[in-house]
Every structure is written in C-alpha cells, then in structure tokens.
C-alpha cells in the first residue's frame, strides 16, 4: 500500500449518479481490494473507501455512486487532475477458494468490485446482476463471465424480480456476493441451506482504511473485526447474520 497523487485518465457519468473513474496506477492488486480516495483540496475531510472495479496495465478503474459530499466532489474531478489514492487496502478475494464452479452475485453498485474478480476467474464463474431499474456494467461482465444473468425489479431490462430468485445453488461450489445487506443476508442464508461456501464483501464507514482507527467494525463469531483490514471480504461462516 502506498499514498500517491495519481493522474485522472477519465471520470465520466455512465448511468444515473454512477461514475467511472480511471486513474494511473502501477502495482499489483487483488480483486476485492479497495483504495481510500480523496481530492487534494479540503472540501471534505475523510478519504472515501472505493473498491477496485478493474485493473489493467497501469490503469485502475473505480465505479462509484454519488451519495454525499465526498463522492459528489470526486465526481467533479476532470481528466489530468490529480487525486489522492491510498492503497491497495483490504484482504481481497481468495482466488484459491474460487477455483471451482462459482456464482458471482452483485446488487446495484455493489457489483462494482466483482468485475475484476470475474475477469480473473473467467468462464468458470457465472454472474448474476440485480438492479432496481437502471442497468450498467453488464456488458463488461459479459466479456469475462461464463453466463451473465441480468434482472431488474420492474423487469424493464432483463429478467423481472430480485437477483436472488434466479440462482440455483445446486449448480455451484462457491458463491461470491456484494450489494445491499438485505440481499447478501438472503444469499448467505441460501448458501448455508445448500452447503455452498460463500464470501461476502462488506461496506462500512471508515476513517483510516488500514486497520488502526477501529471504526469499521463487523460483528463476527470471533467478536468485532475490521472491515478494512480483516475484510472487506468475509467468509459467511464467520459472519453473525
């Protein structure tokens, strides 16, 4: 992990409130890791944890949704501007656990950290993407995944319903998920029922991103753990939900 001021290659709106930020970065990154990102001015204080969407030959891509002051300010940054990056941080996905038939399940912007994983796992992994009504990043997943299922709550694009309705857990040895907690909890429950190993990438408010502030606690069977350092990827076996 390192702290650098990186040059922005692009920072564009790709869907409603969803931005794609591409920056220069040299190093190695494990799928599922994240960076703490901050503008160089003082318009907000704490860097924002944003997961790696894709990484390719010194180009690092993030997908983020503008929610509050920080992400809104980041969305105003332009090509060639410098932005503060700190990372890569977190454990990332354990690829060795996923060298089997895997289902990658993402909900909304929560699918962002799963693209780089899909790319690494290749055709052995199927992808399930659930959205409210606005669909994005599905084309990127189709390039790498074995099979890609897209669904929306109102059926405007793809299948109609919740993403959790379209998965046959009997077909998989492992499941990876990131998205709204209610979705992930349902998936974890189904995995337990079907005896399928499951890994969830969690999101928490963070200050440091590196394990020192103890602000981003996750309740596990072994007590509180840190989403930033012990996670963000947790095995469903350790989570208390």
């Amino acid at each position: 992990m390192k702290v650098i001021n990186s040059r922005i290659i692009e920072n564009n709106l790709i869907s409603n409130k969803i931005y794609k930020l591409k920056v220069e970065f040299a190093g190695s990154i494990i799928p599922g890791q994240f960076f703490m990102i901050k503008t160089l001015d003082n318009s907000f204080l704490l860097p924002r944890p944003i997961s790696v969407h894709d990484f390719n030959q010194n180009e690092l891509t993030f997908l983020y949704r503008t929610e509050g002051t920080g992400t809104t300010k980041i969305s105003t940054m332009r090509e060639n501007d410098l932005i503060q990056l700190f990372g890569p941080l977190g454990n990332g996905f354990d690829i060795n656990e996923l060298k089997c038939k895997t289902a990658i399940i993402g909900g909304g912007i929560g699918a962002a950290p799963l693209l780089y994983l899909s790319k690494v796992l290749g055709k052995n992994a199927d992808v399930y993407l659930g959205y409210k009504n606005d669909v994005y990043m599905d084309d990127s997943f189709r390039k790498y995944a074995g099979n890609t299922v897209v669904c929306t709550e109102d059926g405007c694009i793809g299948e109609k319903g919740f993403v959790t309705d379209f998965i046959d857990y009997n077909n998989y040895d492992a499941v990876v998920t990131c998205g709204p907690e209610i979705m992930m909890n349902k998936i974890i429950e189904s995995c337990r029922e079907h005896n399928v190993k499951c890994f969830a990438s969690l999101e928490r408010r963070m200050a440091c991103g590196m394990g020192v502030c103890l602000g981003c606690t996750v309740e596990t069977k072994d007590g509180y753990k840190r989403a930033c350092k012990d996670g963000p990827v947790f095995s469903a076996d350790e989570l208390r939900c």
Partner: protein
Amino acid sequence: MIRLITNAMGLEFKNPVLTASGTFGFGEEFSEIYDLSKLGGICSKGLTLRERQGNSGIRIWETPMGMINSIGLQNPGVDNFIKYELPRMKSYNTVIAVNLGGHCEEDYFEGIYKLNESDVDLIELNISCPNVKTGGMAFGVKSSVAYNIVSKVKRICKKPLMVKLSPNAESMSEMAIACEEAGADGISLINTIQAMAIDIKKRKPVFDNVYAGLSGPCVKPIALRMVHEAAKNVKIPICGLGGIMTTQDVIEFIMAGATLVQIGTANFIKPDAAIDIIDGLTEFMDREGIDSLDEIRGIV
C-alpha cells in the same frame, strides 16, 4: 535534523512530532508506509488493564472539517500489549509512549505496575475515562479529582508520566496546575471534545453511546487556546494536539507554548502527514533563520 532534537520529561525526542493515540494503532500498519524512526515518538492505541471489545453501533461520523468517534477504547489490554505489540514497537527506534486509561483507581495502579516492568519510554495517562466508582464522571473534569489520581499514579510510576487532559475539564488552567502539583512530568492536550450527531431520518442519535469525541481541524483553534492557557500556568512541558494538519499548525502550537505536538486525525486524511509536517519544520527554520524551536516556543 539535529536542530529538531527536543528534550522533555527526561527523554530525548528526535523531533517534537509524535503520533497521537488512537490514530496510529501500534505503528505496524504505518511502518509499511514510511520509516517510523523519523518520528519524534508514537503514542500507542489507548490501553486499559484488560482487553475491551469497544462500542456497538456506528463508531465514526464525519462532520465539516472534523470527525466524531465512538470506538469505546477497543484494545488488547496491557498484558497482550506488552507481550505482542511492544517488542515490535521498540524496534521502530523512536520514543514509545503508552496511553493508559482506567475506569477506577485500581485499574490505573495495576496497569502502571505492569508497565513499570516493561520497555516503554513514557506513559501518557488518559484521565478522560469515566470513573465507574463515582457515578461515571470522568477523572479529568474536576481538577481535585485529577490531582488525586495523578498524585497516586505518580507515586508508583517508574516511567516519565505525561497526563492527557480532557477539553471537558472545568478549567484548563486549574487542571494543568493540578497535574503539575500532583507531580506529572508533562501534560498533553487536548483529548477529543464531547460531541454528538443525530440521524434525522431515524430521529435518533447516530451513536449508541449518544455522545462521542470530536477531533480534526475544526477543533484546532480551541486546542490552541487551551494549550496557550495551560502554558501560561505551568512549567512542565506541554504536548499540544488537536486538529494539527500542517507544519504551520505545529508552529502555532509551539508559539502558544507547546514543547511537543501530536498528529492525530491527519494520519487518516493523509497517512504520511506526520512526515510532511516534520520535513516542513526544518524548511520553516531555514526560511525563518532560526537554529532551535526554543527561539519561538511560547513567544505568543
């Protein structure tokens, strides 16, 4: 860098810049980012005699130019610290201060006895914790209560003792004097300011504990005033902290009378902030043509 060497509390610091408790863990994570021997010192994550799990619910909340935390002193306890963290910390080749809190007098005493036998260089006594035996008021609110605990700790403490003062003290000048009279070798101030946040959608406090500690650049002017006030009333060295982000902030604290400073929240904003600040100090001295920070200490 010899110009930055600072002597205080019987210790030699390579420079006056330490990292603040609770913002630096035990140094391990930061050692992957920069060489910790460049620091004046490290204050450990706040310890209590026994391990603590910390608070439930939301623990961090951002405010305009500040943050509120409600970690709840999550820590491994003094024994685990001495066994698993201290040996590595000592290898960082800088002054190692242990921040020790307690919820009753006996907690402090037992912690001190254990730390006396360890390799720590300095004890930073956290008196902002509620005293569970006297209705929960923090030790650091009334100067008479602080005097009592500090003098008892000082009697048994074999290490230099720096008392960390709470901005929630009834009077900062009286509190500083009480600590000096109780035998403290130094004081550090300020700890976080008691604050709160409300979630208007839930119509509830953000934190399970309701009140929590505010830090960051928004508290700096208050911290600076309190350091200035304390410095006018005591002769023991003062370690100033509260919202320091830049070298200029450090210079302001030194001009207000601080001998040492601590970098806290800035470690989260830019993990190598302390190094930028230390480098900035020598640049400042070159620019101003001064040989020692003593020349500007307390001049305001």
